[in-house]
């Protein structure tokens, strides 16, 4: 990870020169990598991959500059999520597919309204409309983690998965189905993000 300096005005010119000598000069300008698409969602991974989902369901992988590779064109695609290891998509009917060079179904859906990848691991989770939370294991198998009709969002990091209830409370999973602890009580929380 790049070093960062926030109090630049306090740095002497010699300090800045020394920093640049050690770490190089960063390109702090914006670069357009897609022009006037109908992109509806973008997902970036820690190892530098970028994917986009268009409003017509097309899924693309960014190569370089303005060059993208088309990975899928299915109007049923509702969501994509990705990690350094996997790219997954959810269809409006809840079905989940994983990209392996081709799209492989890993869940038949039925109530699945959200998938959530742990960004720096291979873990994948899904949330059902009735509040069930499942973790992907292998093949088309998923392990039940929780069920609470108040659950309205999940997010994950490499260690665990979190869920949010409609009253703003946030819970952390402890690795055993049904074993969750509250990390934030009733609040105005409207979005949780894992890193």
């Amino acid at each position, binding site marked *: *990870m790049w070093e960062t300096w926030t109090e630049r005005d306090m740095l002497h010119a010699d300090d800045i020169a020394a920093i640049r000598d050690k770490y190089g000069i960063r390109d702090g300008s914006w*670069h357009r*990598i897609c022009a006037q698409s109908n992109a509806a*969602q973008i997902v*970036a991974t820690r190892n530098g991959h970028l994917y986009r989902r268009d409003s017509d369901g097309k899924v693309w992988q960014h190569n370089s500059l303005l060059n993208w590779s088309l990975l899928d064109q299915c109007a049923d695609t509702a969501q994509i999520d990705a990690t350094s290891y996997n790219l997954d998509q959810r269809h409006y009917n809840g079905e989940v597919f994983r990209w392996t060079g081709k799209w492989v179904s890993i869940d038949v859906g039925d109530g699945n309204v959200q998938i959530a990848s742990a960004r720096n691991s291979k873990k994948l989770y899904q949330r059902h409309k009735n509040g069930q939370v499942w973790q992907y294991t292998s093949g088309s198998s998923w392990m039940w983690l929780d069920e609470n009709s108040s659950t309205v969002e999940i997010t994950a990091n490499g260690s665990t998965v979190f869920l949010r209830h409609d009253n703003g409370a946030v819970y952390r999973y402890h690795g055993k189905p049904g074993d969750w602890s509250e*990390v934030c009580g009733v609040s105005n929380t409207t979005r949780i993000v894992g890193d």
Partner: protein
Amino acid sequence: MPYELDPYDEWIKRDANPDNAEIVADSGNLYLRHWNGDVFWYTGTAMNWVNMSTQRKVVPGGKVVQLAAGGERLYCLCLSGDIWQILDGYLDD
């Protein structure tokens, strides 16, 4: 310095603004988008954010509607359909 995640039993208020629409995080960098499309980078000091839209020149694609961060880059999806990228961190020329 980049911020570090707090222990889960401790929450530090990093910002308080009804204009906040979205947050994304990656490898120690935290970004924030306002409803008006402005994009901010968290400096590591509570309540202290840098407006990347103005400090790093306005995102050229227009209003930003979604953020994504990864691979030491921040990506901005704009209302125009443009996608723009910029490197993480904050050390300009």
